[in-house]
């Protein structure tokens, strides 16, 4: 299994995503923002950071990077795509996921370990979790306040596309306590928390983040076997 990890100018967490992928014994394939193809990967992770310095809006310029063309095509064909933090912002700007991420309601950058509830265990990135599982994953962002119009939020709720919700405390003012959402087919997932920072209790608050990467590998094995 080959999982591509994109590096944009200003990406920060690509290295940790590569580590998380390798921890799951999958092959991590570094992808460059200027790449015109995906080098035969089976899934793509768009990592966190400050791509293009967050100029204009978070993710607004990364969305037009050459590598994003093939990512959009692959996603349309059902390839699992995970956007973490700035990656989530990029996927929203690119139109792969609805809504937008705006300035945290309290204006503060938040950096802490955060409890989440897993609300949907049928996406390509969440099958390894028990329904309703509570997981502890770091968050670190200044613009994680998920906003969309009422109809979009209602549709996300009705279609069970809110995959992760903040519990105990909403850190940023997100509508409906949304921490992560998926595409209609459950293959594209975006979330603000950082599963790649929660893969080993030695360096993070838990290893709860590994489940997302293992889930993607399971979904790929399933596809290969069918």
């Amino acid at each position: 299994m080959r999982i591509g990890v994109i590096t944009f100018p200003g990406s920060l967490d690509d290295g940790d995503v590569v580590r998380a992928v390798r921890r799951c014994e999958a092959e991590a394939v570094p992808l460059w923002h200027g790449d015109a193809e995906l080098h035969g990967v089976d899934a793509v992770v768009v990592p966190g950071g400050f791509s293009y310095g967050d100029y204009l809006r978070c993710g607004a310029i990364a969305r037009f990077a050459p590598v994003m063309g093939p990512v959009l095509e692959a996603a349309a064909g059902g390839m699992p795509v995970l956007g973490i933090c700035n990656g989530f912002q990029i996927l929203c700007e690119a139109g792969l996921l609805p809504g937008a991420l705006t300035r945290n309601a309290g204006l503060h950058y938040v950096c802490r370990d955060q409890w989440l509830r897993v609300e949907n265990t049928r996406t390509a990135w969440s099958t390894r979790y028990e329904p309703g599982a509570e997981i502890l994953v770091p968050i670190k962002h200044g613009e994680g306040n998920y906003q969309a119009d009422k109809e979009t939020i209602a549709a996300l709720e009705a279609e069970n596309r809110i995959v992760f919700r903040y519990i105990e405390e909403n850190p940023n003012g997100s509508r409906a306590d949304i921490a992560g959402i998926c595409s209609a087919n459950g293959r594209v997932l975006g979330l603000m928390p950082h599963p790649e920072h929660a893969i080993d209790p030695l360096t993070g608050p838990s290893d709860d983040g590994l489940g997302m990467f293992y889930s993607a590998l399971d979904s790929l094995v399933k596809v290969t076997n069918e």
Partner: protein
Amino acid sequence: MARVVVEVMPKPEILDPQGQAVAKALPRLGFTGIGEVRQGKRFELDVDDSVDDAALHRIAEEFLANTVIEEFTVRRVGS
């Protein structure tokens, strides 16, 4: 060449914590009587005469603003 101004503002229903922070700071500076403040962006573009209004609208709609959360105006302000 012409000068084009694109102004982008958060939609009224979208929380604008930056504008709120500015509004809250004003009384501390001794300015009273100011209600709500909303913060947006202004872009100034020098454009060739060959660039038509439709293209300018697309630039604003597809790139300078995110219409999920923002609204925009485009106007030519002379050369």
